[in-house]
């Protein structure tokens, strides 16, 4: 049996619940993601996917346990947010944005030498290098998403968490993303991907979890993603109201 390289942590959460005020947004979620695996999260809008991801990152108060079990010392986490709120009044270029994420030198003073090459190379990887001088407000939704993704690759992550929005259906983007993720998986990175393209999930994911407040189904895509289950997602009503 081949030994897998592991760089990423085992992400484990048990009985995770989370409420905003009186409404229960996540209800007793059990979840495990392993190094070298792509774990996709799907579910209807408002189902709690982004909330779940933020809980994993330790940013929200929750009940239940969450643990990141690293092999050695804790590694690096890359995070692709669902959106960023760039005000139209701020002339932030693609390059500015990435440099302000990854360097200490104030982004308005230019890119620091230390990261210049790296920034160009990740932009190249997501095919945005030729647009690095464009403003954020001039990008399409899909292009924005690619820039957010590029940012998460510096420094090279050991755990990668992507929160993809519904409307970023962009063929080129999707192909680029999954290519890079394949590479990361081979290097033993743990990847958690909130995804909306069910066909791609079925093809790419090692494990899929469908969340709508509680877990609707979970498992290997070809076992659990059948017509009945999918119908359940698309006909589901948001259920946060009741506790």
């Amino acid at each position, binding site marked *: 049996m081949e030994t897998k390289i592991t760089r990423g942590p085992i992400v484990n959460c048990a009985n995770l619940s989370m409420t905003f005020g009186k409404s229960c947004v996540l209800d007793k979620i059990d979840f495990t993601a392993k190094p070298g695996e792509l774990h996709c999260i799907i579910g209807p809008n408002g189902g709690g996917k982004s909330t779940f991801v*933020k809980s994993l*990152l330790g*940013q929200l108060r929750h009940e239940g346990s969450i643990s990141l079990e690293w092999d050695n010392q804790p590694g690096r*986490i*890359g*995070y692709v*947010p669902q*959106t*960023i*709120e*760039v*005000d139209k*009044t*701020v*002339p*932030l*270029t693609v*390059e*500015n*944005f990435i*440099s*302000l*994420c990854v*360097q*200490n*030198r*104030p*982004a*308005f*003073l*230019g890119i620091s030498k230390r990261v210049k090459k790296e920034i160009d190379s990740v932009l190249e990887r997501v095919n945005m290098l030729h647009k690095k*001088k464009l*403003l954020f407000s001039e990008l399409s939704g899909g292009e924005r998403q690619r820039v957010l993704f590029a*940012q998460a690759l510096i420094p090279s992550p050991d755990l990668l968490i992507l929160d993809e929005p519904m409307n970023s259906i962009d063929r080129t983007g999707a192909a680029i993303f999954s290519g890079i993720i394949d590479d990361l998986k081979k290097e033993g990175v743990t990847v958690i991907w909130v995804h909306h393209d069910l066909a791609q999930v079925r093809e790419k994911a090692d494990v899929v979890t469908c969340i709508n407040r509680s877990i609707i189904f979970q498992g290997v895509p070809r076992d659990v993603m059948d017509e009945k289950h999918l119908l359940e997602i698309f006909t589901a009503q948001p259920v946060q109201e009741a506790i």
Partner: protein
Amino acid sequence: MEMIYDLFRHLIQNLAQAGILPDSLTYTFVINALLCALLIGPTLGAIGTLVVAKRMAFFSSAIGNAALTGIAIGILLGEPVASPYVSLFAFSILFAIFLNFAKNRSGMSHDTLIGVFLAASLALGSTLMLGVSKTINVHILDNFLFGSIITASSDDITLLVVAVVATIVIGIKNYNRFLLSGLNPSLASVRQVPVMKYDYIFVILIALITVASVKIVGAVLVEALLIIPAAAARNISRSLKSFVLWSVLISTTSAVVGIILPMQLELSIPTGGAIIIVATIFFIATLLLRIIRRQ
């Protein structure tokens, strides 16, 4: 500190005597005025880009109003009428901290919450002000409201220097952190930025620089100098670099022209008003440029 100031003064006086700079710059109070302009201009211009990017324009005007209340409280408590700094500082900074706390805790939209406190602080401030104006010279209040460079004392200037240095050092060192926490708190947090802490630092900085500029620019208009140059810069910028650069340039020019020109023309108009008028002219000019370029 004194030494640097003396050096600056001598340099300017020599240049003025040599006819390179205008004659009036041989006077100490004119030099003080210029110094203030050169301190306030770049600082407010630079930090203003963050205020605009973090959508905190409204917030900074609330702090300006709070400064009024602080002044009134100070005068009521018997602090020196021309410099009620203890109350001014204490009230403005507490107000900023409270506002930020309320925002975090209530989960209320920034705008609504600030709208309420903006009005409240103006109401409180103006009521108290009118109360104290019966007992003191109204001109002193005018100065706080709209700024007066002539009455700035050397203590005022020292205070300004301290506030400017603090703002510039902290602002530049943490520029990326401040901006990233505004763009996406979750991402900032993954990037090891303690978002909440930096939010507090930022609002305290705004309060600090507002309070220190009140004597010169006026409580009502400080926030205009935080916002208008940045807004003007935006019209002609296509990157963060030119955004900050133009904002600093426009703000500094506005401050210098707004302070020096009325002195040259011997007009007795409030300094703050003059500065903001110049800044607004820049804004209109850049707006026209932007409109022309779009066609």
